């Protein structure tokens, strides 16, 4: 028999294997992952088609479809991360995990890994379908697309860290936050409109939201052909700050759950 190797990588891959088994166990789940982004794409594809006839400037260069797909990467990454964590609560498996040598940050890495995979499963088919059906290829953006995508995913994970912290501390009663919280930042993310559209006081808030820089940057690239690195730098910096805040929240919730004996009870 092989000798145990107590490396973090092995534990992270072990837990990732658990989520892959879970994903594999149900084909409707796999279809569902791709279903919602595709539906979004179809609806916004037709909106774009309509605008291109009446107000072509609103839908130029596939900006609406690109915005839909990129915004969805935030929502998918967040939901995939949080749903995988919820699986541990629903199956009352959390205590088994935390009596193993698994560190909380390793759990976070496993959740982030499965989240990335599920996000790609969800977004890539929709992005490919947009090419023949609506003549829009987000892949034409090239390397900046990866930067926009990663920023949205990071922001999604930051939200997930806060939500899973709340779930670990307050239990399944807080489950609905999973669906609600990402939309809190949607109006100030300026997904479909420029930041200047917002009233001044909301623009000040948007300036603190990483996603607003991503969508401004994306519009600049698609409409003016200009890659604004300063916007990307702002988005990355803010996302790193959010991740740090999210991690701190999760660890504080975890310590509080250990103090209050919630790790054995959660899910019941």
């Amino acid at each position, binding site marked *: *028999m*092989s000798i*145990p*190797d*107590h*490396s973090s990588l*092995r*534990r992270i*891959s*072990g*837990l990732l*294997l*658990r989520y892959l*088994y*879970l994903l594999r*166990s*149900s084909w409707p789940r796999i279809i569902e992952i791709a279903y919602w982004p595709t539906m979004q794409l179809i609806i916004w594809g037709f909106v774009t088609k309509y605008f291109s006839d009446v107000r072509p400037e609103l839908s130029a260069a596939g900006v609406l479809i690109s915005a839909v797909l990129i915004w969805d990467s935030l929502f998918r990454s967040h939901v995939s991360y949080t749903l995988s964590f919820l*699986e541990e609560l629903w*199956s*009352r*498996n959390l*205590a*088994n*995990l*935390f*009596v*193993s*040598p*698994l*560190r909380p940050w390793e759990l976070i890495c496993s959740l982030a890994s499965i989240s990335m995979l599920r996000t790609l499963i969800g977004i890539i088919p929709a992005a490919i379908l947009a090419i023949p059906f609506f003549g829009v290829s987000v892949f034409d953006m090239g390397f900046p697309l990866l930067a926009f995508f990663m920023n949205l995913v990071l922001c999604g994970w930051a939200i997930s860290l806060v939500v899973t912290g709340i779930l670990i501390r307050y239990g399944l009663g807080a489950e609905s936050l999973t669906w609600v919280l990402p939309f809190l930042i949607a109006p100030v993310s300026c997904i479909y409109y420029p930041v200047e559209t917002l009233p001044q006081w909301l623009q000040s808030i948007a300036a603190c939201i990483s996603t607003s820089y991503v969508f401004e940057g994306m519009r600049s690239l698609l409409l003016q052909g200009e890659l604004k690195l300063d916007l990307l730098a702002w988005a990355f910096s803010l996302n790193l700050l959010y991740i740090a805040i999210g991690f701190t929240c999760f660890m504080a919730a975890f*310590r509080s759950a*250990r*103090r*209050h*004996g919630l*790790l*054995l009870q959660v899910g019941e």
Partner: protein
Amino acid sequence: MEPVIETRKLTKRYDGVVAVDELDLIVGKGSVTALLGGNGAGKTTTLSMLLGLLSPTSGEISIFGEDFVANRFSALARMNFSSPYVDLPQRLTVRENLKVYAKLYGFGEVNPVVDRLAQEFDLTDFLDRRLRRLSSGQKTRVSLAKAFVNEPDLLLLDEPTASLDPETASWIRDFLKSYCEERSATILLASHDMREVELLCEDVLLLRRGKLVERGSPADLLRRFGRKTLEDVFLDVARGQHGEVA
């Protein structure tokens, strides 16, 4: 006997309620020890603190000679736990569950680990069945198999033979006993099955209101309390007809 678990003045308070009260206990290497007590006596709280699921309000825990409160992870790699009140993922098959936990405990080659556990716990017939399709007795066996995935030096068990038929329960008790003897492993178990405790344990710790109130071998306790069964001793302790351990 070399101590594997040692607690000093271990205390847990929840909102002013004392669940475990300055508990001093030593569990020696290679022993099978029972933690007994009525509801609210502090058994689950004590086990949870010894597993790192619950942080103590005050006091010290030493496991394998190391400070468990300050750094629990190296000890956790050599420990394991099973409880009928903690589930494994129901949507995964038995094989998948064991593979995942083999990896979590550091094994790269997981198939030999699964084969060993399947053989030891007689899981072969339902290895590829999802957990939710199993009977409660089969689930208990899988949960016990998971607890042996890393061949632990210290095993904490909560009601280890709950839901098992008498024959399987007897087989599990024999397995636990021989495992401890062969590997000098240590078991601390919480149980309400007094017959199981008499058959399996050489040392019994009796808790009441978070305090250790009696300790000894089953035979020793029967003699001291002048009782014929451990259940009567348990009832005497639960009703407060005893002295506290100094």
